[in-house]
């Protein structure tokens, strides 16, 4: 009898399928020199590798948050276990108290008191004041020690973070030195002068910064609500971190829908021409002339009606929200494949007249083989550039759609919902800024890292920039 029951939501399954696919692709690329070469080019760019490290942190959080389970109810009979309706994730288990330490309502970042005055009963005397928080700063005797405590935690976190980073870099250095058969000192000299051939110093610096940030956050979060609490008293840091998964799922699963459509239709239109080309062009021209938001709103409403009229299909609220997220990915994918398809059509049109395609036709090679061996490998770099460039656009689009109210389920943690929730409070005096600020900061970091990484990928893959040949 296990204490938990694993739950595999639709998006979880797809996310892990995607991870498996990417792993397979990486293994395939490693074995092919011409595919590996541009990636080696990406690996040489400090900016791209720094952002890749930041992205990796986001991805790890997102993946941990995709391992869902339900806890067994403590009073359920052992022979017929019953499980909680609340779906939790490995990430929830990891951050533990962050989720459960709920205050009454708004409190500012790192505060000890609530943000609103209340009547408090002091030994029978009712006083109207800012009450102390249940968890934030609860360990402190009085407000006098507040700032000293914060400074102490920041310093302690910084030192620990730095120590961990140094340890990590040291171990990595030992491993690298062994691999390149150098002495430890020699390797460090090469590393220090930046002649490694890959941006070791940038990576080490980024690693140290991330380690320090995590350590400081851990120390602060143990005693305070680092980014304050929201209207129902939930920790904003926790909400922001939970939103990462939503953003990543939207950014990646949507491309899963986009890619087959764009690649198949785009290449088919460019290679076969004639009526195939005409039909595909008409389809995407029509699709392009319908406002995207309208289509998405309509589709999301249909899904919502479906979910409400078939409640028996979904055993938990999480499953309901998840199906809506998946629907959103699907419909965004359906509306956003046209750009890439048009690009691929043009490129295939050009490639299909090249001599090596003619040569293959002269051998009587079948269409599917020509498409698979001659056309697709030569447009693959465009697909890749499009994926990484689209990712950040999709993350931002989710925020806009949720703000408008046609995005993810309101019960789902997402940056768009955070912004939507913060909208009204911005008019309040004094203003509640931390919800909006946190959503902005997290989204900004993710999108900036993705864009910088995309720039690196484009530089390495785009033949016009002379990365190859």
């Amino acid at each position, binding site marked *: 009898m296990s204490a938990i029951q694993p739950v595999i939501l639709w998006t979880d399954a797809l996310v892990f399928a995607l991870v498996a696919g990417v792993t397979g692709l990486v293994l395939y690329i490693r074995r092919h*020199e*011409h595919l590996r070469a541009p990636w080696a080019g990406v690996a040489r760019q400090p900016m791209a590798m720094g952002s890749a490290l930041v992205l990796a942190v986001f991805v790890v959080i997102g993946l941990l948050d995709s391992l869902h389970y339900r806890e067994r109810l403590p009073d359920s009979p052992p022979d017929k276990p019953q499980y909680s309706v609340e779906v939790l994730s490995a990430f929830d288990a990891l951050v533990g108290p962050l989720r459960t330490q709920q205050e009454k309502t708004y409190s500012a970042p790192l505060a000890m008191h609530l943000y609103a005055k209340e009547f408090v009963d002091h030994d029978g005397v009712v006083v109207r004041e800012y009450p102390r928080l249940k968890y934030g700063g609860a360990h402190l005797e009085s407000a006098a020690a507040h700032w000293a405590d914060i400074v102490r935690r920041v310093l302690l976190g910084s030192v620990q973070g730095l120590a961990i980073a140094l340890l990590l870099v040291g171990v990595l250095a030992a491993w690298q030195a062994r691999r390149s058969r150098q002495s430890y000192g020699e390797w460090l000299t090469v590393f220090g002068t930046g002649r490694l051939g890959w941006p070791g110093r940038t990576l080490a610096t980024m690693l140290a910064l991330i380690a320090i940030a995590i350590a400081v956050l851990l120390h602060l979060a143990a005693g305070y609500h680092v980014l304050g609490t929201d209207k129902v008293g939930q920790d904003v840091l926790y909400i922001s971190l939970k939103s990462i998964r939503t953003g990543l799922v939207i950014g990646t699963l949507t491309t899963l829908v986009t890619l087959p459509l764009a690649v198949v239709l785009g290449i088919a239109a460019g290679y076969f021409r004639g009526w195939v080309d005409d039909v595909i062009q008409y389809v995407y021209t029509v699709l392009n002339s319908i406002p995207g938001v309208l289509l998405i709103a309509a589709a999301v409403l249909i899904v919502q009606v479906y979910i409400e009229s078939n409640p028996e299909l979904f055993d938990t609220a999480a499953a309901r929200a998840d199906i809506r997220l998946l629907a959103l990915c699907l419909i965004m994918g359906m509306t956003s494949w046209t750009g890439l398809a048009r690009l691929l059509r043009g490129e295939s049109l050009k490639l299909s007249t*090249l*001599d*090596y395609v*003619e*040569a*293959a*036709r*002269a*051998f*009587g*090679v*079948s269409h599917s*083989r020509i498409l698979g*061996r*001659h056309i697709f*490998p*030569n447009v693959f770099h465009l697909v890749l550039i499009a994926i990484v460039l689209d990712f950040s656009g999709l993350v931002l689009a989710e925020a806009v759609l949720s703000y408008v109210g046609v995005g993810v389920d309101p019960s789902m943690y997402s940056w768009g919902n955070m912004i939507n929730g913060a909208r009204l409070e911005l008019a309040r005096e004094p203003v509640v800024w931390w919800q909006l600020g946190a959503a902005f900061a997290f989204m900004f970091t993710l999108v900036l890292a993705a864009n910088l990484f995309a720039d690196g990928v484009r530089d390495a893959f785009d033949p016009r920039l002379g990365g*190859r*040949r």
Partner: protein
Amino acid sequence: MSTLLKVEQLVTEIGGARVVDGVSFTVATGETYALLGESGCGKSMTALSLMRLLPDGGRIASGIVRLGESDVRALPEREMRSVRGGRMAMIFQEPMLALNPVMKVGEQIVEALALHRGLSGQPAREAARALLDAVGVADPVRRLDSYPFELSGGLRQRMMIAMALAGEPELLIADEPTTALDVTIQAQVLDVLRRLKGERGMGMLLITHDLGVVAENADRVGVMYAGELIEEGSRADFFAAPQHPYSRMLFRALPRAGDSGRLVTIPGQVPKLTEPLHGCRFAARCPHAAPRCRQESPGWQALGGQRVRCHFAGQLGDAVPQAAGEAVTSQLTQPAADLLRADTLEVHFPIRRGLFQRTVGRVRAVDGVSFTIPAGRTLALVGESGCGKTTVGKALLRLVEPTAGTVQLDNETLGERNLARLRRQAQMVFQDPFSSLNPRMRVADILLEGMDALKVGEATQRRAAVARLLKQVGLPDDAGGRYPHAFSGGQRQRIAIARALAVAPRLVICDEPTSALDVSVQAQILNLLKDLQAELGLAYLFITHNLAVVEYLAHEVAVMYLGRIVEMGPAADILRTPRHPYTQALIAAVPRLDGRGGQQARLAGDQPSPLDPPSGCHFHPRCPHASETCRRVYPRASTLAGNHVVSCHLLTPS
């Protein structure tokens, strides 16, 4: 004659490479100085250095460039702008890229006139008209209002020359001015340049890779190799007795009339300029190289009017290295059986317009072409670009669907049913070795593709076949595991030939297989093709515009004009005694090494569009002998002695 341009010890670097390394020469007023060299030798970079128009990352490291009295390197950029196009003008290779496609050519010329001569309004237009007159543009007033896309290649190049002349330059730099043009048009443009130089007393720096162009136009010649000038002399001296081993080998690599032996090839490759170079740069490829050559860079040695950078200057005698082995061609004495017979082959492309894509016209790319290729023989298909010769090749292989006519292979008519059989028997080698190989496939996979598709041989033995093919075309054993980008242009063309040979065809259609290659590499490919013919008994359909190559390789020649064959017969007959006026003009237009070309009358005008061919004989608007009959009736083919067929009214017994 006074010295117009003086270049001393010019060194230009791009990235870490010294692309021009210590080049010195002078150009006098009224003189044409030709810089001769193969691709990548630094001749264009020398020109761009003179104009101070180097690409990003390039800089002039040292040296002196004097134009008249002024030091070009010391001029501030402001003054340099008035020198460019003013005192020193440049013509580029590709006129379509050098003209602004959205501006009328008249406006572009007036722009240059306004900048350098301060003209505007009506006087400027007058001056522009005069310039077009000078470069021999017919109907100049109308042409001023044309856009570049409305002009043919030859006219565009004339417009470029007119623009270059707008600033009345003292020095004209022509960077491969005719490489992109057909021979007949090349002859016209070179005539214009020669005449203008005489009239205006300009100095001219002519940059080219073509010995024939040099022979007909230059007063003095400088040969460049790997960034250095290695030989210099007057045209007469240079062509009478080239001194540097490299120059000599260049001459020997050229296919020439009546010489059916092997061509001399230059082994190895040009050294990489990014690496430090010691000694003579040609030493690694030179048949005369001695230890001294590898250690000590030779200085200039004067030999009469010539100077040369070679340790053995003057000691090499006249003995030019002979090719190893004698002629290996197996001249078939008996007429072999016909392998391929094309009968009134026709390829018309419909032009569709309007909402319902109605067919409003047809481009008659190939318009009733008949010929036969005997087994083991070579038929050369010759003509200017746009005459439909490539389309013929593609139609034979059904890469383009013929609209009418039949193709027979071994007396069996080809259709959809026996297409696979055709593809076993006939294969194609393309012009551009860079676009004909998929950059993302290994060489072995490229060679296997045809064998897999046509199921040639046992699957287990195909790997062995790849190794045999690589050996056959002279590539190293490990080539199979590499990707095409690791190979040079000539090696890529070898891979393309090996790919065609992989399915053991009996006919190979070669579509200008050497026109993208340097002379010395062209010689290697031509030798290879000839060896393969002797060894495997291949038949070739050799599509080309280069008549010298035809003479070297072909048994029969067919001359195409506007989709039809105008003359066909044994190669020697056609090249010695051409009967059709078009063939005569084509042969006369080829620049000759003895510099005695250019006497014959040039062919005027351009090839008309195949969309709307002239009535009667297609050639009559350009033909000096055209009569009333020619304007009305297309001439029947008449057979002369020795299987020589000509379609011309002059030869039809009336």
